[in-house]
């Protein structure tokens, strides 16, 4: 029996994102749609999100404008598609501190946020570097950190130091330090609650954007991904591409190399792999798995 249901919820997208930004070193390959999504996990009495998107105002809006993000919708609108409100969310795992993953903490008044301490401490370190090293601060919104102070004061920010097993029953936090960002983590949902799981899912954050980061020329046939495993880093590694590739290996190993079980939240073709509903706002709700007794939302 699977205790958790998992949905991937699209909340915005970039219509024309350069392929070179998705796959490292792939130049002159044009553009493709890059959805912005977060993940909802529900079951076992818990309502959990992996990342929270961003708030389309202030600096979040400025960054979104830079990247060409369109069709942004609020967490309240998006979660309503699964009959969940932001107030229902009790836990958020923040895979990393980029604005499109950590930029909407205010929307979840009852959630406890888990963030790697290294993500924070190295970010503080980067802020102290000279102006000529501005690149080390790419994609970070200072005001997100100010909001996080308030979370910490309220006891709702948990700075995690490394890996953490069973942060909720069957859910582990795994790290990929010095890869996409300094303190990246990914979430392993062991949906059979077994120590060595045979029904598990990996929520990859930005360690992979799309299936092409794991498979050469992936083809989707009958909701399955076929092709040869051939890891290619995402287009943005603030640290090491090698560490990104090694993290990809770890994530795939955790699901016995079944590519479908690693969820890249910026993949446009997720809707070809998982049952999907398109809302009247042209957002996609993708249902990865359903717990027993849970109602389908697609």
């Amino acid at each position, binding site marked *: 029996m699977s205790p958790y249901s998992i949905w991937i919820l699209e909340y915005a997208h970039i219509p024309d994102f350069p392929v070179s930004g998705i796959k490292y070193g792939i130049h002159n390959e044009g553009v493709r749609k890059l959805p912005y999504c977060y993940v909802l996990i529900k079951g076992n009495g818990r309502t959990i999100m992996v990342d929270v998107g961003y*708030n389309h105002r202030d600096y979040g809006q400025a960054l979104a404008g830079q990247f060409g993000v369109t069709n942004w919708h609020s967490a309240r609108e998006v979660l309503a598609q699964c009959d969940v409100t932001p107030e229902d969310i009790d836990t958020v795992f923040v895979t990393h501190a980029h604005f499109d993953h950590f930029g909407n903490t205010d929307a979840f008044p009852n959630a406890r946020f888990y963030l790697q301490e290294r993500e924070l401490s190295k970010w503080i370190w980067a802020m102290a570097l000279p102006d000529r090293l501005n690149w080390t601060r790419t994609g970070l919104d200072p*005001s997100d950190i100010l909001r*996080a102070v308030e979370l910490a004061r309220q006891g709702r920010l948990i700075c995690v130091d490394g890996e953490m097993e069973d942060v909720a029953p069957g859910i582990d936090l795994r790290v990929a330090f010095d890869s996409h960002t300094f303190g990246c983590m990914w979430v392993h949902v062991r949906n059979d609650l077994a120590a060595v799981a045979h029904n598990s899912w990996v929520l990859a954050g930005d360690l992979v954007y799309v299936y092409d980061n794991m498979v050469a020329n992936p083809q989707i046939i009958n909701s399955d991904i076929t092709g040869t495993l051939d890891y290619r880093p995402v287009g943005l590694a603030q640290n090491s591409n090698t560490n990104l590739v090694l993290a990809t290996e770890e994530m795939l190993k955790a699901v016995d190399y079944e590519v479908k079980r690693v969820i890249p939240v910026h993949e446009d073709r997720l809707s070809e792999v998982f049952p999907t509903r398109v809302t009247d706002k042209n957002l996609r709700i993708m249902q990865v798995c359903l717990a027993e007794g849970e109602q389908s939302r697609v």
Partner: protein
Amino acid sequence: MFDAMRSQDSPYSLSFSQDCMEGRLAPFGDEAVQPIPVPSDHSLVLVTDELNRYVALIEHPYGQLNRVIAQMAGLLILGHARNGFSTYAQLAKTPEQALIETLDLLNQLKVPPMGLTHFKHLSLAARNLLDLSRALHRNINNAAVFKTRAPGWLSELNKANALLRCIAIPHSGLMPVDLQNTCFCCSQQ
């Protein structure tokens, strides 16, 4: 559409931008956006040039102040959670050092007359932050003090942020300022 919009009187309703981090000025909020009149006579062109020169002078310290605020906010979190000392010790430049440099830089600037009021505003934010950075420095290894004083420090950080936001308007930034630790637009909230 904006269910999670921060209220205007929230201490977090502050604008930052990539430009801040790159040492340019921040974008301004909707409430402050005014169309910039196209100068039609020579005198107005001169004023605009003077303003542009002033903006060029202050954009680096302005970006630096924004970064320091975020940095101190991060240290507050770490200090509150456990101990911020190891992170603090690894900084290329402590907030206090950065602020002393910034104040030195501000003191060396030859500010055009039209920028004086605005400049005082910027300097006030820097001085307030320096006081706060010294308090952080003294207590960086003392989690108990951090927990006790964090609300006050956070409040000070937000006040400094509010000051910076008021002057984050590149073209109409020289707004009326009263220096009672706030300015016209802050006092309207």
